[in-house]
């Protein structure tokens, strides 16, 4: 992804959060999520505090609430599952809004909803304040195998190309009057997938040849090493450390 080709997940900005080195942010988000997951679910106020912490980060990063909430829609499928839980879990029953629900089920639903939502919100904040390329640099910095980082970078770089190819095929199908209505049309969709695979694979071969002809030997040269100062680490770790404090309080209180 060259200059000016920011992904739609990324929200351009110059806030302190945007400026943090990517690997610090990755560590901070991971630490935060781990802390959230290991918090006892009975400590309701702890989750409220986590949400406040995330809101503070969003405010510092100048990510508007609407943007964040829109991206939270990804978790709708498991919200549906969580809402079902009070009805299917056996145990002590109670009345809530005129419905008979089970107490362990309610706790379970709350557990999944709260922790899942906080995790999704943290990831969304990370993705919207960090460019894809620097995210990959951060992963490499965190000692992810270089080959894996390369594969991921190729996937991201060509993901949009391949998706567009799929979209063009879909437009071509529709312009010829095709609409997938049922099982009988699976064959057409499968031929699309087959054609897409061949196109992707052949493109991969061409890319590889192009790289070899430019001196590729199996490893990518690191041209911009990202480094982090102690202050930046401290700044990034404020979030998980504060969360850890909340978590410890949640266990003791």
């Amino acid at each position, binding site marked *: 992804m060259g200059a000016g080709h920011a992904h739609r997940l990324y929200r351009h900005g110059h806030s302190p959060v945007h400026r943090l080195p990517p690997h610090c942010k990755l560590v901070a988000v991971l630490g935060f999520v781990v802390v959230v997951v290991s918090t006892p679910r009975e400590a309701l106020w702890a989750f409220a505090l986590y949400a406040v912490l995330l809101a503070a980060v969003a405010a510092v990063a100048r990510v508007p609430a609407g943007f964040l909430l829109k991206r939270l829609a990804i978790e709708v499928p498991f919200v549906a599952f969580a809402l079902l839980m009070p009805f299917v*879990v056996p145990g002590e029953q109670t009345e809530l809004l005129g419905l008979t629900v089970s107490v362990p089920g309610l706790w379970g639903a709350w*557990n999944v909803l709260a922790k899942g939502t906080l995790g999704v919100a943290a990831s969304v904040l990370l993705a919207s304040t960090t460019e894809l390329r620097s995210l990959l640099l951060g992963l490499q910095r965190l000692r992810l195998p270089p080959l894996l980082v390369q594969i991921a970078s190729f996937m991201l770089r060509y993901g949009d190309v391949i998706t567009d190819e799929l979209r063009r095929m879909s437009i071509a199908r529709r312009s010829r009057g095709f609409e997938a209505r049922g099982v009988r*049309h699976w064959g057409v969709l499968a031929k699309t997938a087959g054609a897409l*695979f061949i196109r992707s*694979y052949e493109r991969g071969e061409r890319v590889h040849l192009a790289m070899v002809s430019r001196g590729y030997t199996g490893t990518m040269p690191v041209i911009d090493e990202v480094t982090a100062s102690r202050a930046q680490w401290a700044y990034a770790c404020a979030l998980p450390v504060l969360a850890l404090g909340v978590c410890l309080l949640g266990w003791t209180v």
Partner: protein
Amino acid sequence: MHVPDGFINAPVSAVAGVVAAGAVAVSLRGARRELDGRTAPLAGLVAAFIFAVQMLNFPVAAGTSGHLLGGALAAILVGPYTGVLCIAVVLLMQGILFADGGLTALGVNITVMGVVTVVVAYALFRGLTGVLPRTRRSTTAAAFVAALVSVPAAAVAFTALYAIGGTTDVPLGKVLTAMVGVHVLIGIGEAAITALTVGAVLAVRPDLVHGAQGLAAPLKLRVDGALVDVPAAPAAEPAPAARGRSTRGVWATGLVAALLLAGFVSYYASASPDGLEKVAADKGIDENVKEHGAADSPLADYGVKDISDARLSGGLAGVIGVGVTVAVGSGVFWAVHRRRRPEPVAGALGSD
């Protein structure tokens, strides 16, 4: 099927993460061999393909639609190591960028959706192509069965993880029934699309399909409008293979037929009672559980289920059991078989 944060507890997530990391490490090594050095660009492009193909919605009956998981497809098209690698990368990127699947649940997701689907699908596929005649049609059929079993197998793997480290108290039998029931349905669609896709690629570029590398089509000549086999050399090639599988062929075919049959029967059985959506029915079961008052053990949960549900879950578990056994068995068989005859296989592959 992306598992969110907080669904599986921390220790089990950590163990799953270690398993996933190990699988990815092994796959990194294996993929270099499968793609002969072109790992980074090709695996990256295949991962992009899987990412795109997961957006390809196929209509299922009654206005709903599903999408491919792609584990079996990747394993058959590019090989198991590259398959695991590509799915792991897709899941990693989905977790970090799209917040699809929790970060702490990344290991669980990679283990369940990447490793289990690919390993089960590929072992089953290899076993089946080993015993079936070497034709395109049998490759497609093997792809169908492999994909069909791989999806419910992932559901079973998820249920197993849930049984060890689930944070909610939904009874195990119910989770298993719901997960496997829903995923058998998804598996049917996955199987059909996977088989058709493999067939489509086979028709155009059979050399690209990793799972069909041994499939050398005999040269045909058109003489007076009729296709005629080229005499001599190709005729001698399939003979040793045929001799090798003469005794095994009968029971292997029978087993495959049984598996297919069971898969379809369970499809029709599970089509009417949908475990997750029939809340009312579940509430009925809940009352039963309360009457019995022994909700703690999974056995009790199996016991209180009404007959159709028990039969359903039992039958499905049976199918999965058969599938996994065939997968493991034929995988072992394949490994032994390959070790015993390295020369002809290498010759048939014709790889460089």
